[in-house]
């Protein structure tokens, strides 16, 4: 996984779809809050909450045109479910945040 070294901009696959413009913008706008909630859950060792947040992102991100974000969320979901230790989970949340940081409207 070399995702964190990639600094290129990420745009939604549906950026040019007028039907999608509104909800993609809302998705991008809300993304920092979702990440913050994941960090809070991680700090509180609330794994179930973290898993749920990652799970929802995993199911939806692809639909908003951000499949890489969905894949990164899936890795968190999986790490929590199989009971990986906090370091693994934390690094995966970090990877997700790195991808999110590259997203542009």
């Amino acid at each position, binding site marked *: 996984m070399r995702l964190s070294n990639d600094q290129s901009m990420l745009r939604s696959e549906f950026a040019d779809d007028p039907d999608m413009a509104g*909800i993609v913008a809302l*998705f991008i706008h809300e993304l920092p809050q979702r990440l913050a909630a994941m960090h809070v859950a991680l700090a509180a060792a609330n794994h179930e909450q973290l898993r749920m947040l990652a799970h*929802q992102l*995993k*199911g*939806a*991100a*692809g*639909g908003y045109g951000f499949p890489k974000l969905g894949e990164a969320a899936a890795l968190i979901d999986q790490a929590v479910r199989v009971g990986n230790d906090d370091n693994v989970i934390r690094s995966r949340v970090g990877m997700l945040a790195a991808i999110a940081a590259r997203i542009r409207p």
Partner: protein
Amino acid sequence: MTERSSTFPKVLAIDDSVLIHRLLQVRLQHEEIQLFGATRADTGIKMARELRPDVVLLDIELDLKGQGMDGFGVLQVFKDDPDLQDVSVIFISGQSTMEERVRALDMGASDFVAKPFEIVELQARVRSALRVQKLVRMLAQKAQVDGLTGLWNRTYFDRRLSQEVGEAVRHGRSLSLVMCDVDRFKKLNDERGHPFGDKVLERLARIFQTGRGSDIACRWGGEEFGIILPNTVGSEAIEVADRYRRVIEQEVWPSVPGMVITASFGVADVLVLPNTPTTEDLVLAADAALYQAKMNGRNRVEAAVAAHLPG
């Protein structure tokens, strides 16, 4: 999207993620459907009972918190509810195993879509489910309709009469039953052949369909018809039956010039029966009156009530 044409079929999405609801709203906006959404199992079930949707999109991994029910649980509730068991359920799933998919299909789900959605596929699967749903509803109705006459069949008659008798008894309302039998039908069949007998039954069915909108005409069996008349007292029912009797008597049968076909009628009103009448009591009373009409010379209306007969 709920303000869209109310004639469009209803699709209810049950998913705990608001992100998915937004996506569905946009991605299904050009389909000719009304889309509704619920984020919890309990509200989803409640909405399904109120809306009677044609298709339900159901998240298999529905969040359990405080509701004790995932997508399988919701599906089970649907299948146990006579009003909801025929609804087409499409499971939405992110990471289901093959075993889970098989379990869902065996429980009665009709299809699967994977998250993230392939949009065109999602739209096609919803359309496909709606087509199937239309056929299911048509079949359910067909199972209650008599093939020859197009009237309600015996199965429907039994169920509906029991429902109507229950209502009438509970609310002290009147309810009449008219039983009708074609006179000398066996002779007619023997002399003119069964296709002609069928024509007679079809013609009578059409006559019974010209009745009041609230009357429920059924083919009871063979050459016998049962007409359920809710909120109708015996004397009114006798008038209704006698009108039918006269129309039948005056029918012209082009293939047999000069032929007159008649029918006999028995009428019973639930209010004149003793105690708490059952469906069977009402049928027996109307049938006894019909027998009396036959004994008294046919082409007559007799009633299980002490009412004045017209004509």
